[in-house]
């Protein structure tokens, strides 16, 4: 069966067509934002009105929106439509401070599914494929985001969820899965277990395409996973503030992720000066949504550091390409696709009487798996009782898991033994293989 190359006509737009569409949608978005008390006030304070946005360059007049703004207006203060028009809500993990809440109308959900379907189509997914989503569902947007996108494309979609590796492998062989979405470390785990069970991915499965994202990984890691499983692996970028997956995606060239400029306006700024960086240099990614109804965001500071890859992509799409994410301009930790702030961990630890105030979060790659260890100092007087120490360790672990959705390894250490740098406590050490 032969198919069209592009899922949507916008995919093949020229730069001038894209920019004309962007201006039209930006003006509509700004106007629509005035339905939100937050943006109405922001514009008033900045002495701006929607009619001041005449060109794409006028975007720079609009103040940035930050994660703190999302927290301050928790839960619904940034909505630009009445709540009864919303159809879904996604929230960040945790209870420390306010989580961030993203609202979607029915139309937003359709557009989100379309963007994900477009990404999947771009890397060769077709209705005859079987798509297995080995991603967490629930609030984690990688679950429902890919589910609806894959269904929209018309694939047979298996909402396998995260974990339960033996069952995942059984599904591969029984259902003839051809496309899998998983975080990179889990892809390695799948391969390990296949080897243990004598399943040869090339001989015993029809796996062809792997979607990996939500976890920093290097080009080497990608190549290794591709070789292990006999697949092509494509990097995916998204964040819950911009729906979730489907924001940017690699094309078959596997050289940078096209960010859909009919949905977003991209800026790369210096995180300190907030001025645009020269073309091709690394800075903080700032995004403006162009088609969102429930919660449009203007100049949202993503805190992700990346750069725009210069030059044209041979695939024929003119949507710009983002390089792999280079890190963060805040202290947020991304582990297994989950966003974690050290303050969440600190808040839990400080509730324990037995603990002193210093702790150290170590992120490392252990046997291809990214893991977190939390070392925490105990108070002077220490407990001479193994079972009490173990109970304490277990309780800390349990409470941390409830907060950050990941089970860290917790180690109790004596007071004044954690490293200090110039008197200031070191909070996070990241030795993961990446980029």
């Amino acid at each position, binding site marked *: 069966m032969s198919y069209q190359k592009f899922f949507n006509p916008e995919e093949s737009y020229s730069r001038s067509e894209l920019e004309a569409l962007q201006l039209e949608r930006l003006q509509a978005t700004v106007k629509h934002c005035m339905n939100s008390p937050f943006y109405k006030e922001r514009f008033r304070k900045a002495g701006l009105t929607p009619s001041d946005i005449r060109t794409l360059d006028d975007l720079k007049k609009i103040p940035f929106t930050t994660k703190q703004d999302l927290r301050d207006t928790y839960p619904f203060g940034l909505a630009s439509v009445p709540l009864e028009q919303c159809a879904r809500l996604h929230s960040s993990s945790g209870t420390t401070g306010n989580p961030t809440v993203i609202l979607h109308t029915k139309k937003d959900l359709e557009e989100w599914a379309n963007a994900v379907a477009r990404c999947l189509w771009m890397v060769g997914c077709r209705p005859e494929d079987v798509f297995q989503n080995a991603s967490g569902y629930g609030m984690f947007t990688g679950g429902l985001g890919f589910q609806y996108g894959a269904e929209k494309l018309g694939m047979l979609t298996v909402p396998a969820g995260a974990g339960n590796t033996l069952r995942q492998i059984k599904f591969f062989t029984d259902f003839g899965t051809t496309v899998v979405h998983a975080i990179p470390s889990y892809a390695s785990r799948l391969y390990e277990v296949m080897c243990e069970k004598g399943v040869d991915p090339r001989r015993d499965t029809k796996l062809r395409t792997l979607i990996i994202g939500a976890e920093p990984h290097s080009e080497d890691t990608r190549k290794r996973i591709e070789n292990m499983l006999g697949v092509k692996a494509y990097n995916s970028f998204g964040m819950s503030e911009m729906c979730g997956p489907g924001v940017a995606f690699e094309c078959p060239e596997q050289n940078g992720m096209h960010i859909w400029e009919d949905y977003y306006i991209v800026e790369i700024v210096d995180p300190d000066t907030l001025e645009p960086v020269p073309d091709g240099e690394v800075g903080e990614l700032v995004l403006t949504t162009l088609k969102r109804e429930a919660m449009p965001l203007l100049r949202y500071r993503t805190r992700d550091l990346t750069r725009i890859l210069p030059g044209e992509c041979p695939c024929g799409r003119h949507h710009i390409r983002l390089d792999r994410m280079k890190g963060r301009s805040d202290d947020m930790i991304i582990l297994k696709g989950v966003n974690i702030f050290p303050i969440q961990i600190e808040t839990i630890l400080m509730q324990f009487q037995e603990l002193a105030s210093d702790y150290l979060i170590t992120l490392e790659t252990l046997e291809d798996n990214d893991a977190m260890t939390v070392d925490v100092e*105990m108070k*002077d*007087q*220490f*407990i*001479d*009782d*193994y079972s009490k*120490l173990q109970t304490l360790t277990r309780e800390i672990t349990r409470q941390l898991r409830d907060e950050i959705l990941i089970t860290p390894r917790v*180690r*109790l*250490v*004596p*007071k*004044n*033994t954690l490293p200090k740098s110039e008197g200031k406590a070191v909070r996070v050490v990241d030795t993961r293989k990446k980029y």
Partner: protein
Amino acid sequence: MTVHQLSVFIENKSGALVRVLRLLKQENIQLIATTIADTVDYGIFRIICSQPEKAYNVLREAGVAVSLCEVLAVELDDRPGKAADAIELFAGEGISIAYLYSFLLNGKGVLIFRTDNAEKAAEIITSNGLNVIGEKDLSRLL
């Protein structure tokens, strides 16, 4: 009557144990008995020594996580079955032992243990004619 025991939190890291021992050596403190259990991340190093209060202060001042507590010490004849007889008394009374270790000192066996009910344990020992020893007895035995 009890004896003092030092409990030291030892990280599972090379050099952690030797650091504690060196500090005690510098103060000329003599070890009488020690025990350490292995867990993945840390150990509790328990010490019966000469001048336990001095040892405690030395370690504390050096920033070592240490606690000083009292444990029961029972002197037994160094003959087969003596430990069994002693422990049997606790079992009969429903007393649980948290930990126990033993050593020989001048031809006598000494059992050190911590139970969930120190008072009752001491009572059982004395009422059964066993010899509970204290700090002074230890230094006499040295």
